[in-house]
């Protein structure tokens, strides 16, 4: 039986011959669409290694960070942080916000939020060679484990996301490890191009597996196991990374890196980020289905950061609670406002207790981030 595939197919076009299995066009060839036990494509959402890929949650810093472009790492959205080193900080706000531009955007209401980085003051030309500007996603080793990186039977990982930028240019997305002492840095950088300014564009790329180094290079337990880093600007000394190859970590970007933050109001938005085990990722249309239920996503995020309100009344009371989601590690305990007379908290990954003399309502934060 011969198939009469459509001529001049478009990227992502589906074709199901009579009595046959579905094919999808990914230039330059048609690929068989894998059957996934009859499950809808949305079932793959549980395989998404990325947490909060839709930037729905920004629980600690609310709508974001004003002028967060400093030499700190800040989680401006859950699991997403700044990762910058700049000698002369510019004026950039990092925020969690509604997907506003352009209207209507191509993904309807599937992604209501995005991660925004926008210059509100002077832009920068990255005058210092060692400067760089990253949006960083830290991945726990247990979430990287399905890829099997470090071993001969490792499988590829397919990254997909939506990006919107006020200027065109080339940016780099690096997938990297975080090795044990004695291990080696392993990074794979791929350049993406923003083809049109002020337009949401869908991007996808399959990272080949890294098949050596074992768990010394690719940790698989409850520690930092992987990094996904979006670079939107870098100084001249930060552009030495070889693209499209597994190499040592030399710099944070490649020679093709553009500067997306040269002028006031320049902005870059990201949403719908997924990293799936295997070489098949969603098409732009399918990406809308690749979402875990909101409540499930929230539970997963509570492994890294959680907050409670507790009331001390009358004074001198213990407040104790058991976490619904076990945290990644014993968390740091912070109260807001500062609780006068807060005594040693008794804290573990599964429960915590604090003792305070001050009567009143307190907001407590538990932080077990990577």
């Amino acid at each position, binding site marked *: 039986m011969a198939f009469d595939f459509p001529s001049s197919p478009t990227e992502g076009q589906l074709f199901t011959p009579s009595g046959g299995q579905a094919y999808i066009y990914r230039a330059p060839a048609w690929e068989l669409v894998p059957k996934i036990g009859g499950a809808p494509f949305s079932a793959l959402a549980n395989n998404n290694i990325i947490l909060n890929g839709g930037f729905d949650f920004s629980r600690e*810093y609310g709508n974001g960070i004003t002028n967060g472009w400093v030499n700190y790492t800040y989680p401006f959205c859950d699991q997403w942080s700044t990762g910058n080193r700049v000698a002369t900080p510019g004026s950039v706000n990092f925020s969690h916000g509604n997907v506003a531009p352009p209207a209507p955007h191509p993904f309807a209401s599937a992604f209501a939020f995005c991660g925004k980085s926008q210059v509100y003051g002077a832009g920068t030309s990255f005058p210092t060679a060692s400067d760089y500007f990253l949006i960083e996603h830290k991945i726990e080793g247990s979430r990287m484990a399905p890829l099997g990186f470090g071993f001969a039977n490792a499988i590829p990982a397919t990254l997909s996301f939506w990006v919107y930028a006020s200027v065109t240019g080339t940016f780099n997305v690096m997938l990297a490890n975080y090795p044990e002492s004695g291990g080696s840095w392993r990074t794979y950088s791929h350049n993406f191009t923003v083809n049109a300014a002020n337009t949401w564009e869908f991007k996808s790329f399959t990272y080949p597996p890294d098949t050596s180094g074992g768990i010394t290079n690719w940790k698989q337990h409850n520690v930092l196991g992987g990094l996904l880093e979006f670079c939107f600007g870098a100084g001249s000394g930060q552009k030495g990374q070889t693209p499209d190859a597994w190499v040592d970590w030399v710099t944070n970007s490649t020679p093709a890196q553009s500067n997306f933050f040269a002028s006031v109001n320049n902005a870059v938005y990201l949403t719908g980020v997924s990293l799936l085990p295997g070489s098949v990722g969603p098409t732009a249309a399918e990406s809308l289905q690749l979402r875990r239920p909101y409540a499930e996503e929230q539970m997963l995020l509570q492994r890294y950061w959680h907050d409670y309100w507790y009331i001390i009344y009358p004074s001198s009371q213990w407040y104790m609670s058991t976490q619904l989601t076990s945290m990644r590690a014993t968390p740091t305990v912070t109260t*807001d406002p500062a609780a006068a007379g807060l005594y040693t908290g008794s804290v573990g990954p599964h429960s915590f207790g604090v003792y305070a003399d001050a009567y009143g309502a307190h907001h407590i934060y538990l932080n077990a981030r990577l």
Partner: protein
Amino acid sequence: MADYRLTDTDKFVVRTKADPHNPNAGEAWIPNDPLNMDWVEYQEWLAEGGVPDPYVEPPPPPPTEGETVAYDHENRIRTLEGQPPMPLPDFMKRVARKPIKLF
């Protein structure tokens, strides 16, 4: 003031430096857990020569309503017995409340 302060136990250290993006946040109690990134950062700070502030005994907590009632009751008995009233600090030492260490 250093960025950190010791506690009465080696299970915790207190980070006292403010978070510029969350000015309302109080001191952070960082557990002695090598998987906790704040603890890792504290270890790096120590390695770079940082010296934490020493542990400071917190001031005694004010008496609760129940303790005040008990204190007044104690002194009424002492008056009946012809003894001088007991100073409040002495009474509070006798009924000293100490946080329970659960773990």
